[in-house]
């Protein structure tokens, strides 16, 4: 079984600052995927970024980037030029790769989340 740990229950930064959310995971799998999801007050779960474990290059999506350290089992999210709309819960999630069925047939394992507050 996999576990995902987010050690920062809450973080607060000023608008336009850069913030890094941490995530560590534990697994015996070699092929897997990692995700960051955002949950604003509307409750909708929104995919922010994903990383394939077999790729050494860190994923980026506009102001969002990750620092993926496979040996250390670490997957942090960096948000640059933070905006008020970035205020939300952020969840790190793990998915095992299913070679024959494709994708993550048995679902995501989530961390408990980090509440990020962007101050004006």
């Amino acid at each position, binding site marked *: 079984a996999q576990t995902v740990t987010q050690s920062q229950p809450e973080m607060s930064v000023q608008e336009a600052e850069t913030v890094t959310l941490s995530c560590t995971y534990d697994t015996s799998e070699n092929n897997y995927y990692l995700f960051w999801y955002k949950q604003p007050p509307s*409750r*909708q779960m929104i995919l922010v970024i994903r990383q394939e474990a077999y790729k050494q290059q860190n994923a980026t999506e506009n102001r969002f980037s990750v620092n993926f350290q496979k040996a250390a089992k670490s997957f942090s999210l960096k948000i640059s030029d933070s905006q008020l709309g970035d205020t939300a819960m952020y969840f790190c999630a793990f998915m095992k*790769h299913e070679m024959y069925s494709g994708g*993550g*047939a*048995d679902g995501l394992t*989530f961390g408990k989340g980090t509440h990020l507050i962007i101050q004006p």
Partner: protein
Amino acid sequence: DAGITQSPRHKVTETGTPVTLRCHQTENHRYMYWYRQDPGHGLRLIHYSYGVKDTDKGEVSDGYSVSRSKTEDFLLTLESATSSQTSVYFCAISGPGLASEQYFGPGTRLTVT
């Protein structure tokens, strides 16, 4: 946005009554999932489906059953609701291919009194 709807969006029910939550997708995706979200726990997988009539248990399946008679619909049933099942329930779908992301419905807030 992925075409996922959940019904009802809010429900209050009494302990011991049966409850069925519905997830409907218009994407024709193979995989469908039910999660629950509770404070301090993140989201946890209840059940998932990998095709019509093909389902399996997740991490917190006790007290829940599911059915999938059509590709587009995935039902979650609480046979006899308990107060510990008060939660927000999310449905998610995942498409074909490798590492398909999961896309989530808007959630159902269920309160068991």
